[in-house]
């Protein structure tokens, strides 16, 4: 079965472009706003979108996404079912790759098989599960594969000695975490990127993209130069957090800036 993620990277490669992957916290400001923001991001240069399903205890997130998650749950009572319904509506309007970023318990609790069946049904191309390391990938692998949904693998600067095994089993794209710690915008990085990415390049057979801490066009350009794309989360979520229902022009402007930066990389 083909997957929109593979198609997208093939297409980008042919155009000699890098992937701009953005993240949005589903239901922050309501799911109607999320739906509009996804389309707005696509219109303004995003190639792939990660839709974050809110969780009560997001242990891998920094303050910005933690608070967005909380607003989504507290103010809008966002459910997985409602997120799937939104994706179903989005699928009628776009053919871009859509991923869900969510914690293991959200999948497990909804029934692993039923969850991945639903992903295929509504047109989800991949999942990113921050609390599912390589050692536990088996938990969801069979159900994901049966539905042609990629379970995206992550490597971090603390993955010394693990990159080979993770990269060789990865599907779709490899998510390279720029620095240790939690998600969030950073002013500077302490990672030795040359060493980190040369290790990744050695083992990755699929595109690899970098995320965590990329806040603007300048950072997108710098980080994009190391790999096949950049992933921007907290900077987008921050715009929605600040402007809520009026956020779309701000989100659009940010995506344009990121796109310009990335195109220079």
């Amino acid at each position, binding site marked *: 079965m083909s997957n929109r993620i593979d198609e997208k990277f093939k297409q980008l490669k042919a155009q000699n472009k890098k992937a701009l992957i953005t993240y949005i916290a589903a239901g922050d400001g309501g799911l109607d706003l999320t739906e509009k923001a996804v389309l707005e991001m696509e219109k303004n240069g995003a190639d792939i979108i990660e839709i974050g399903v809110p969780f*009560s205890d997001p242990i891998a997130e920094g303050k910005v996404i933690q608070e967005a998650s909380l607003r989504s749950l507290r103010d809008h009572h966002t459910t997985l079912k409602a997120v799937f319904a939104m994706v179903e509506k989005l699928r009628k309007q776009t053919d871009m790759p859509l991923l869900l970023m969510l914690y293991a318990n959200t999948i497990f609790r909804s029934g692993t098989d039923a969850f991945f069946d639903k992903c295929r049904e509504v047109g989800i191309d991949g999942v990113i599960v921050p609390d599912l390391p390589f050692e536990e990938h088996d*938990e969801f692998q069979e159900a994901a594969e049966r539905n042609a949904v990629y379970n995206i693998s992550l490597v971090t600067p603390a993955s010394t000695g693990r990159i080979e095994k993770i990269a060789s089993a990865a599907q779709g794209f490899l998510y390279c975490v720029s620095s240790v710690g939690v998600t969030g915008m950073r002013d500077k990085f302490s990672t030795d990127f040359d060493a980190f990415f040369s290790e990744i390049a050695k083992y990755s057979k699929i595109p690899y993209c970098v995320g965590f801490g990329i806040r603007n066009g300048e950072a997108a350009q710098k980080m994009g130069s190391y790999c096949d794309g950049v992933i921007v989360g907290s900077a987008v979520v921050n715009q929605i957090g600040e402007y809520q229902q009026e956020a779309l022009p701000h989100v659009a402007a940010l995506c344009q800036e990121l796109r310009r930066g990335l195109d220079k990389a």
Partner: protein
Amino acid sequence: MSKIGRFGDFGGQYVPETVMNAVSELQEAYEKYSKDPEFLKELQDLYHNYAFRPSLLYYADKMTKDLGGAKIYIKREDLNHTGSHKINNALGQVLLAKKMGKKRVIAETGAGQHGVATATVCAYFDMECEVYMGREDMERQALNVYRMELLGAKVTGVDSGTATLKDAINEAMRDWATNIATTFYCIGSVMGPHPYPTMVRDFQKIIGEEAKQQILEAEGRLPDCVVACVGGGSNAMGIFYDFIPDTSVRLVGAEAGGKGADTEFHAATLTKGDLGIFHGMKSVFLQNDEGQIAPVFSISAGLDYPGIGPEHAYLHQTGRADYISITDEEAVQAFEYLSRTEGIIPAVESAHAVAAALKIAPTMQKDQIMIINLSGRGDKDVQQIARYRGVNLNV
């Protein structure tokens, strides 16, 4: 792929990639040192000469006569240095951290007992120590906050979520992911990713080993029932573990029933929870249909946790141990009962075990034996119990 660190289907290592190498490093270090006679000798020495082990196995004569059922013995973990069983695990983990060359130790704490124990051992070993504690718990346990600070630890309040134990764990995990190279995360219970549930149980199993030897000396036979309170479950695993092969010994865990397991306000995980994946482990959690972790409620900050260690989930599933829920009111009554009857003020956590004993012991025969694990002393709780009873202490 191998399924390591599993108790049946429970356990595992569901943690972010950033901490996987640290988890593996800990696993290797623990495998090495747990077989190293030098390490074990050093730990035994600390148990005896610093923590004041072995703890007493005390025959509760008045309670036995009053209840008219089983002979009741109390394992006095409250008499350990720092006032609870938590010192056993803190000594083990911080000694291991030292061997691993770590300079900084972080911990989460609910009631403050694990935080105090960790701060104490860090002071002893000259290690930097930071303890995460829910803001709500800092208010409930102000005395323990000050104790930790006296011991040189930094106490960081956590405002996110419900501002209790689970949120303190979330924040400690975030710190760990950020400071992975320098920092050792000293988890206070038999929970989290492998190797923690096994390692913490091993550091606590001395409770059961001593209790078994002591009861054999006192009575010449095994007990019929062992009772302990269960939050994450470390004191219970500690006293249960050595008795697991002795199938004639009934093992009973007392969970925090709050205002009642049938209300919305409790922390009775095994009574009311469902299988899930959280805090590094597959186990049983209180959660809604969407998998959102539920807010929990208990008079006891130490039992106020929406999950339980994976080995308990396994003992529950296999029927080897029974778990019952004890309400706040029952725990407070047991707190007062033990104070008046035996002159021992229990921690409000441990009072849940006493309350379970008050229910079970009278149903047993006079020639049967029960051991209650008294996991901690109650000085820290006096003010809160007074408040519960409507007494104003003006402090």
